[in-house]
């Protein structure tokens, strides 16, 4: 559902009230610290029930308020609401409570482009796993279940290693192997599919004259079956007992961006890494649209700023069809060049929004 109106009370520095958003794209222009990103965060929170910047729900209250609430209303009158009060968060869809947040991705997923995405390009394995897990989760509630089961079993297994509960470990090995192999195979499939979407997109914006793709380096080899993994875990028993932690498995998987001569991100310039991170989001949005047959909501938090005009143009051309797009800009940016028929432009100053 696209949003025709966003209402907020005590959310970050946004002034209480409703902001009309009945347009295919909404631009928010303002200096830093005036509420641009907070507005995108409000939209994101309505899509997923939590902030895209991480952090505690308690910190989202304006001036230390003990409660805040958001509500999004669609053109058809449907609504979603997220409210936080004294440590308890309530998410509602059309007035009915949502029990598990994973259900929200079936409704209105947003793809957010922000500065922090650079972490995916730079190479922290954990951040890259996060990105691909998110990409898979957008189109598969089953993937979320598998990931949760693996993480829970892994935590239990690490505890059993610390407790030296050998008989329970035998059983947890079977579980970790079974959920983990499921996860590995899902990740291998998504990496293959993603690579095909990502490589041509990246070349069209970066123009490097060589293919940069995504390759999956699983901790457990792709040809290892359940018995092989269980044997591998048994063989590492003494070392894992000594360290009190699980040394292999999908929590150690890596995703690598490769070019003709190996690891691309090792040698890429900052500009290239920035383009890479933006293209990851483009491919993520396309993956979502391709698999689900629906268009995502796009949130772009001041990400054009650091691109030269030519790359900006290419990036804007590469942006996939969206259900609705929200952009933030600094006042000096040529945002008028990106305006289309019906784009709503707001100026923001100290959390107050003025339509131009």
């Amino acid at each position, binding site marked *: 559902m696209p949003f025709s109106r966003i209402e907020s009370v005590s959310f970050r520095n946004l002034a209480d009230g409703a902001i009309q958003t009945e347009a295919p794209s909404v631009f928010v222009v303002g200096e830093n610290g005036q509420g641009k990103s907070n507005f995108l965060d409000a939209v994101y929170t309505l899509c997923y029930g939590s902030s895209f910047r991480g952090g505690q729900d308690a910190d989202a209250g304006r001036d230390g308020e003990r409660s805040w609430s958001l509500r999004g209303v669609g053109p058809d009158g449907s609504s979603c609401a997220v409210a936080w009060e004294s440590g308890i968060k309530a998410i509602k869809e059309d007035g009915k409570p949502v029990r598990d947040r994973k259900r929200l991705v079936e409704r209105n997923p947003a793809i957010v482009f922000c500065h922090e995405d650079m972490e995916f390009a730079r190479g922290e394995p954990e951040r890259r796993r996060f990105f691909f897990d998110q990409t898979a989760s957008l189109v598969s509630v089953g993937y979320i*279940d598998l990931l949760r089961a693996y993480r829970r*079993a892994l935590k*239990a297994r690490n505890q059993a290693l610390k407790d030296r*509960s050998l*008989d*329970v470990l035998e059983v947890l090995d*079977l*579980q970790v192997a079974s959920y983990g192999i499921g996860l590995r195979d899902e990740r291998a499939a998504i990496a293959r599919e993603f690579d095909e979407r990502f490589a041509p997109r990246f070349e069209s914006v970066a123009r490097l004259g060589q293919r940069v793709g995504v390759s999956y380096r699983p901790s457990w080899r792709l040809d290892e079956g359940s018995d092989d993994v269980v044997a591998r875990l048994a063989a590492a028993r003494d070392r894992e007992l000594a360290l009190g932690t699980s040394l292999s498995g999908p929590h150690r998987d890596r995703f690598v961006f490769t070019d003709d001569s190996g690891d691309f991100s090792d040698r890429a310039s900052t500009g290239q890494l920035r383009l890479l991170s933006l293209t990851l989001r483009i491919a993520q949005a396309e993956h979502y649209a391709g698999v689900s047959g629906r268009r995502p909501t796009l949130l772009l938090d001041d990400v054009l700023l650091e691109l030269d005009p030519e790359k900006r143009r290419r990036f804007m051309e590469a942006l996939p069809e969206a259900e609705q797009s929200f952009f933030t800009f600094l006042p000096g940016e040529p945002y008028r060049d990106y305006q289309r028929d019906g784009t709503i432009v707001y100026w923001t100053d100290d959390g107050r929004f003025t339509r131009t």
Partner: protein
Amino acid sequence: MKALDDLVGILARLPGIGRKSAARIAFHVLKSDDQYVALLAERIGSLKEKVRFCSVCGSYTEDDPCEVCSSPMRDRSLVCVVEQAQDVLTIEASREYRGVYHVLGALISPLDGIGPDALRLDRLVARVRDQGVSEVVIATNPTVEGDTTALYIKKVLEGSGARVTRLATGIPVGGDLEYADKLTLARSFRGRVAL
């Protein structure tokens, strides 16, 4: 009023009862006739005296052994393993199951410090060994801990001669037997799979 506040406070600790509902119940009690209030207090007070755990299967009962364990109509070669005593009531309500039960009382969970010793498993093993049990159906919830416990039980029953099966479920997703409707439960009993 202290007496009223005290009652609201203790009612609000009940599952699913917030302070608003607790206050509504307390006022209802105030308005009710004395006979009803005395009966309510007596019923609550005597519940834990009257209802005990069955010494054979571990489910709730007023008479020991319980109705299921003492019925000649039940198939003693078939034992259904559940986590909690109230799960027995859920399965009984489905009228799909003709065997007997074994209540574990907990699930194996290293993160909560619960090991296999907490599960009355020696009793289960003894029942299987001494009473000609041919099939053990594990009906623990489809969670990671439910899976751990099911696999552990299969391990301890290896070589006992009994077939070990599990109610048909997919990946652990945190489902709860308590919320399974009767039809789903009936289907999963028919579709149980070998572990």
